[in-house]
């Protein structure tokens, strides 16, 4: 595991490069994370996925979008266009690091929508798109974040004295994270994934977003609980599904 900063040196992105061990395969994998609470919850799971991919011979890069995680930028300055450009920057970085042009773009949750938008709007080229638990659309994802934020507040307020209730969120916050109006508008307008790219569509047991017509599908046996506020504080570390996904990739991307 090699932590790196890359991209524009005045506003670098933070990433972690997992070098392929053993026989290196032709494809490299770019992991596009989700956002907010899902990003936090899935951090260790994405690390596990990256490690297993690297052990299987795939050069792998995971990274944080600008204004999120360890990357440069204030959360209030986050914009959809920046995030789509970040995916392109990360793809170039991974091509440089791995020396391959055969790229797999692997999105998790909201990251699936971002990766698809980067493909459609910015011409991000990939030999395979992988979408794990993709939301139905940007609006669907935002509605879920609003619901989870409200549910989480109910849990918090229930434990507080009535004269010490929490103030409401600011208008530019979503589920405890900065959510400026321009970002909110752009994300809400993101369509669902219907593209004709070569795609692997992965779903957890409790996710039922319909797959695009041309996608190959892989259904895992584990529930992810993305829709349940009670699981916000529980890390998502899907060891068995990760093993299955990596085995599948070894078959389709030797």
């Amino acid at each position, binding site marked *: 595991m090699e932590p790196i900063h890359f991209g524009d040196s005045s506003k670098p992105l933070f990433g972690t490069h997992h070098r392929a061990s053993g026989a290196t395969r032709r494809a490299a994998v770019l992991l596009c994370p989700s956002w907010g609470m899902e990003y936090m919850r899935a951090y260790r799971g994405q690390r596990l996925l990256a490690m297993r991919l690297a052990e299987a011979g795939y050069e792998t890069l995971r990274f944080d979008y600008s204004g999120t995680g360890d990357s440069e930028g204030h959360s209030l300055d986050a914009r959809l266009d920046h995030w789509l450009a970040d995916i392109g920057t990360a793809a170039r970085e991974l091509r440089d690091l791995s020396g391959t042009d055969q790229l797999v773009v692997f999105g998790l949750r909201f990251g699936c929508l971002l990766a698809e938008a980067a493909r459609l709007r910015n011409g991000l080229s990939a030999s395979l798109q992988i979408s794990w638990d993709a939301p139905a659309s940007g609006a669907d994802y935002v509605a879920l974040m609003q619901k989870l934020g409200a549910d989480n507040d109910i*849990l918090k307020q229930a434990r507080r004295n009535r004269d010490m209730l929490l103030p409401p969120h600011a208008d530019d916050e979503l589920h405890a994270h900065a959510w400026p109006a321009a970002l909110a508008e752009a994300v809400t307008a993101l369509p669902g994934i219907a593209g004709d790219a070569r795609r692997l569509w992965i779903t957890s047991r409790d996710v039922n977003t319909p797959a695009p017509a041309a996608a190959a599908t892989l259904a895992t046996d584990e529930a992810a609980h993305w829709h349940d506020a009670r699981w916000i504080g529980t890390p998502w570390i899907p060891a068995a599904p990760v093993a299955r996904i990596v085995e599948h990739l070894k078959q389709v991307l030797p």
Partner: protein
Amino acid sequence: MSADLRETPYTFGEDCRLFGILTRPGVVNADRPVIVIPNTGIEHRVGPNRLHVQLARALAASGFCVFRFDISGLGDSDPPRGKSANASDDLKLALDSLGTRVTGAGFVLVGLCSGAHDIHQFGRDDPRVRGLLFIDGYTYSTPHFQRLLWTARLTHIGRSFRKLFAKLGEKLKPPTEDAPQGVDTDFVVWPPKAETQADYERMLARGVALGFVFTGDTQWAYLYTDQHIDAFPLLRGKAQVWFLPHIDHTLTRRKAREELIALVRHWLQGLSG
């Protein structure tokens, strides 16, 4: 992040199994302590709602070097081989690694929740530690706390309102029977009061600056500003305590994060003269 701040990610410890990010100001002032922030709960070094990132950058903008890192088994750090993970061991390795990278006047550790527990256990004995800031750390009852608690319980005007919340909360209670194996969500065991008192005596004898922040999510264990001073009179005049009932433990509101960051910065600047 300001243009003159620099962030350096690095691995450290045996087998380079631990990971953290050092944030440095453009000009390092060697008279200032280096700030170290371990994890909060199970969240990686970014902290709850990115608090640790914002805190590190704000403090670096005020001239402090800040290191936030993942303890064993969290974020990008691996557990040790052949022995149990121990946050005190990790903190020691973190300070060792910083000793060769930055020059500063000792270390001040800032910990939230489980982080407060971790810095207490480590900071008790390590002579390099100059200050400790505990956010939602250990709480202990006092007679006045008991009076406030029972008064609130017995005379609560909005009792039915709260019951409604409680019912909704019960519906949303974590499904522990279905929780993943191996995930420990009960982070901290409070030490007996006498043990904590002895620890504070040792810290104060070494000249360690102590600060305590309690948020409103501790309100069934902490109900007034001086509760910790009343529980430990030896702290009177020697430690600072803040009770912030309007903010929550995971700082879900941006204003809460900004207020806490300002508080921490002010306290640290006071220590540094």
